[in-house]
């Protein structure tokens, strides 16, 4: 893409997003193109609770409302649930046969916690989680941006053990609180409040100076050998100083200006469509302004109740969680399928927007440099197996889309656990073979530039991906 088209398309997206960007942002673009930074590599994970519709083949609803596509890797056919992604077919990949081994016999309602971590959190008793894949990426990509990651959910906060309201967990396995108010997210991204931060930084700076002076005076009283040992400490302090300088730089860098006139920052979950689209818009803006390169978004909580369970109002249906329990009622499969279709539609809209936006400071369009995934830790009713996962983009990262990738053995037609509406499903012995989802995460980590060959206790990648 040459310079001229870059300018052109930037104007186009200004109109296309329904947002007007003030001029200073253009300068920020220019500023961030300096230095060692390369084309951004981004990661987004969208999580929806309660799984998808998986009727039996013998059920009349199977043809239209079974979530998984039919056919093979290239020549697959989307059902009514995912046909909203047909126009993006060449940009998406759909997966089957993946799940976290430790979750396969745990009630699906407990498992939003481990979708991005793969930790064996179990169904009751003491609770311990591990770092989520997005936070591993954030540790790596976070050094290029003002915010290491953007963690969002409709419900906000951390939720309870085995009832997470965030998809992100830190190195110690503790939940990273999610934001759920568009205004609050917007303010974090685009409104300065650096006064406290500046004072804190100044104190940290004087603490480090003090520590260096103090260490120097100890150093003079040590043997040569011990001075060598102590030099590691000095290096650690200096590395911390560098980090501070970077934080200082961000404080001094003007925050991108965004005109909020067409953003609905007061939208609430019960205004489902508006809220949902606003949240996606915020991810888009965060990526576009390179405020962060990592985001997670959880739609509702498992076993939902209350206003946050009402995204399904967008398609005129009652509580989303209830839809999974009512699949055997007249029109039940269709209702659940319709809601899943709506989720896919919004994801598709976001993907399309990334595709339509040229990469501000790099190759291709934004989608080419973003791995965006959408999925759940359940497929059928309360059943944490055969996770329904869609990914989009990442062409420049090495992902080849337009495929339906089936993993494992014995469940090529996705009938294992299909049609169930009781807890007999998740307590049953697993008869088919599935591969660990963490292997996909290893692939993703590597392609996003994290040097590792294992994640969540699994090593190795998925070679087909």
């Amino acid at each position: 893409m040459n310079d001229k088209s870059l300018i052109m398309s930037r104007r186009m997206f200004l109109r296309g997003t329904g947002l007007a960007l003030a001029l200073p942002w253009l300068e920020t673009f220019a500023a961030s193109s300096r230095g060692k930074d390369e084309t951004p590599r981004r990661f987004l994970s969208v999580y929806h609770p309660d799984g998808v519709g998986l009727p039996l083949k013998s059920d009349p609803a199977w043809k239209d409302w079974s979530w998984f596509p039919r056919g093979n890797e290239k020549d697959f056919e989307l059902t009514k649930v995912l046909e909203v992604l047909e126009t993006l077919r060449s940009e998406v990949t759909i997966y089957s046969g993946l799940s976290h081994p430790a979750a396969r016999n745990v009630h699906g309602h407990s498992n939003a916690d481990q979708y991005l971590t793969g930790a064996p959190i179990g169904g009751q008793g003491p609770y311990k989680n591990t770092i989520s894949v997005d936070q591993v990426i954030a540790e790596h990509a976070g050094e290029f941006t003002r915010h290491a990651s953007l963690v969002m959910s409709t419900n906000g906060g951390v939720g309870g053990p085995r009832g997470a309201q965030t998809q992100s967990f830190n190195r110690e396995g503790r939940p990273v609180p999610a934001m759920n108010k568009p205004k609050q997210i917007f303010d974090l991204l685009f409104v300065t409040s650096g006064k406290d931060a500046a004072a804190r930084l100044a104190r940290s700076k004087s603490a480090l100076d003090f520590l260096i002076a103090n260490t120097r005076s100890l150093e003079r009283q040590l043997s040569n050998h011990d001075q060598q040992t102590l030099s590691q400490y000095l290096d650690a302090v200096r590395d911390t100083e560098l980090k501070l300088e970077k934080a200082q730089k961000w404080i001094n860098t003007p925050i991108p200006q965004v005109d909020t006139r067409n953003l609905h920052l007061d939208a609430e979950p019960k205004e489902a469509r508006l809220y949902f689209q606003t949240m996606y818009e915020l991810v888009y803006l965060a990526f576009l302004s390179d405020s962060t390169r990592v985001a997670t978004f959880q739609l509702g909580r498992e076993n939902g109740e209350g206003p946050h369970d009402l995204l399904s109002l967008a398609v005129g249906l009652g509580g989303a969680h209830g839809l999974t329990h009512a699949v055997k009622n007249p029109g039940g499969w269709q209702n659940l399928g319709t809601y899943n279709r709506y989720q896919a539609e919004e994801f598709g809209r976001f993907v399309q927007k990334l595709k339509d936006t040229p990469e501000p400071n790099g190759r291709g369009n934004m989608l080419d440099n973003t791995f965006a995934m959408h999925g759940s830790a359940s497929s059928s009713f309360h059943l944490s197996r055969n996770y329904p996962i869609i990914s989009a983009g990442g062409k420049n990262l090495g992902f080849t889309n337009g495929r339906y990738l089936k993993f494992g053995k014995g469940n090529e037609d996705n009938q294992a656990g299909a049609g169930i509406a009781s807890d007999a499903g998740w307590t049953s012995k697993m008869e088919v073979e599935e591969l660990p989802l963490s292997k996909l995460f290893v692939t993703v980590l590597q392609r996003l530039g994290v040097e590792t060959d294992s994640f969540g206790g699994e090593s190795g990648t998925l070679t087909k991906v």
Partner: protein
Amino acid sequence: MKLPRNALLLMLGTAWTLLAADGQQAPISLEAAREQGRLKSRFLKATKDVAKSTDVIPKANVAFFAGSVGPILKKSCLACHGPEKSKGRLRIDQLNPDLLSGPDVERWREIFAALSKSEMPPEDEPNYALADADRARIVDWLTEELNAASLVRRNSKGHSSFRRLTNYEYNYALQDLLGLPFPPPNQLPPETASEDGFKNSSELLQMSAMQFDTYREMGLKALRRATVIGERPQAVTYVISMQDEMDKALSGKETKASEKATRKSKNAGTKQLLLHRETGESIQYSAGKAMPRTEAVAGPTPAVSPVVLVLPRSGELKLDLDRFLPDEGTMRVRIRAGRSSMTPDEHASLRLMFSAHTSNNANFSQVVSEHDIAVTVPAEHPQFIQFDIPLSDIQRNPFRKLNTTFPRRDEFLHIQNVSNASGGEEPLRVLIDYIEISAPFYEQWPPKSHTDIFIESKNKSDEQTYGREVLAHFLRRAWRRPLAAQEVNEFMTLFANYRPGFPTFEEAMVEVLAIALATPEFLYLTQRVTGNETKSPAKISELELASRLALFLWSSIPDDELLKLAEHGKFREPSVLTAQVKRMLADPRSRRFSQNFVEQWLGLDRMDSVTHVTDSALRGAMQEEPIAFFGEVLRHNHSIMDFIHSDYAVVNERLAAHYQIPKVFGPDFRKVAITPQSNRGGLLTCAAVMTMNSDGKDSHPLKRGIWMLKRILDDPPPPPPPNVPQVDLTNPEILKMTLKERIADHRNKPACNSCHSRIDPWGIAFENYDALGAFRTSIKNKPVDATSELFNRQTLAGIDGLKQYLLTDRQDQFARAMVHKLTAYALGRPLSFADSADIDSLTTQFRRRDDRLGDLIHLIVTSNIFNSK
């Protein structure tokens, strides 16, 4: 001087050969073996205290080599280790016999090891057999020369004890320094263990920016926890009186009459009830909802009530505390309880769990009491049992502050009876009449941890003067030395810089103190170079000695008493030092020494990755046993030969059941006499050792052999060569073999033999112990074959044979290994050849004191090596 020694060695050598003549040991008792073995000690025959000869510059005795040792080596060794063949890449004819200045000391040490363990020359080479007198001559010469060579190198050793604190030491130091009731939650990355298994080894204790950040964060958090701001917070108090509960239950419910009638029903002994002890009236009861009361905890405790909660074995009272517990601080739980009967074979303890159930399938529950607390008094005279729980460190219900009722906001406290009460007419039950829960609980206000930092002073109103006082007081303890005025001034400059950013003196000062906790003076064990170091290695200062000693025996920083003695230059006086060591070992903090040393020495953290122990009580007991055993030997100053074999075990009920030792009741570990039939005694057959050295299904002789050599005998086998052929499990012939046959098959491959013949036999001797360390006499209906033959043709007949051999022939090796391990741990650095003269000297003194563990601690603490840089 030399002659009688040689003669003795000669005699001993002969006795040894007689014993091992036909490869079979005479079947003697292990006690007799221990006595016989002691007579053979090389250290006990040593006629001078080697370490004292430091002032004389030793010279190499090359003449004796030329006249005596050289010709013997030529005769017995040259054929395989010479110009024709050079097995093990050793050419005996090319070694420099000057060990003091020559380059071949390491090779000579290997030769010394092979000869003294009778591994060379090989038994199947009769033409090159080494006469005992000749062997003794070489070993004797090498002993002297190696010792001299070590002394010469002592001054140029490459390892230093300067190191940062380990994670656990850092945690204890913070806890002790700040007087915190609980260790602060540790977020530091795990440590790497040294070759010896130690995590406090100077060269492996790294520092990174991430760690540095964590230190700063943890230090500040711990300080904020130790100090308070403002007025005493109003405590939330729950009071549950069983009298009230019964009144509540009985009022308004007519159905209770029928329940009253059932009070004499058959299974009354296992039911959970509210019982009026005088009227016999009872009613079922399992869960209560407690609303907080506003009156202070200190309110009068009611008299003992006749109405009690009857908690049978595994019974649980689940209290709904709603959502009123504070976020932080200590929750004190007081339970007035007694036993329904005092039968000695039954025990009951209380345990606390905490839980929440926020929505379907979103729940957690965890044990929050650190230890179960035994109920020991009769119900007629109940006593309070008290738990302190850190509310900010346990999993809480994150929804407790919601304004809506879903997800659910309640938090639950469970009081459980952990007991072994068994059936019968009247099994033991716990009777509780009164429970009090209060949070945040403070013994006093402001708490002692606060006033220990913000000390009493007449200058409190003068921030400059008072600031200096606070800093000087705090820094002396944190840095383990008094500070110069200038050093305090530097902190005051920083304080002046911080002060405007904080509303109170205390808050700003806490920030400054947190920086002191991130300095190397706190994080590292320092040793300063002083101007007048004439001798090398130089002595450490008394203050440095106090820190080293505190880390050794308490895994923490010195207390005020140690600091005072060191400041006044009185610490190194032998009587003072000895008295202090005694005091420190008697202090509860010395439990940290037993735990950390034993865990690292034996590699017990491998138990953490074992998945085949599913009973958590058994797992806990397994992990505790070696620590408890070590503690027992230490407390009673027993011989360390008890680690090889003892006529007692240290077990609790769960482990005794596993070992089929009868009549042990209760969760506490205690010394129990055992018979030979129990096949226990010593550390080698501890269930933990056997379990972690198994493959999850069965015993693993190779792992057990390596463990023996590495951990017990300090003789680690070399790592496997890079091109080691794998056992081919696709070969049906191999698949058919038993594990022992498979190992034998592997060992018989020439490439594998030289190492495996030194490892496998040790492990095969343990074949009577299965993957959980239980004793067995058959494997898959075949009798267990636990007999093996060592490299030197020594037969080991099962565990008794192994113990007998160790006791008769390897006492010196084990004693020296123990000295080596303990000294390496005490110094926090790896030992090298330069230290071996010191270790030999310590071993000699140790063996003279009948190998007593307590004495060894004193010997190490007063030794040159422990007092030197």
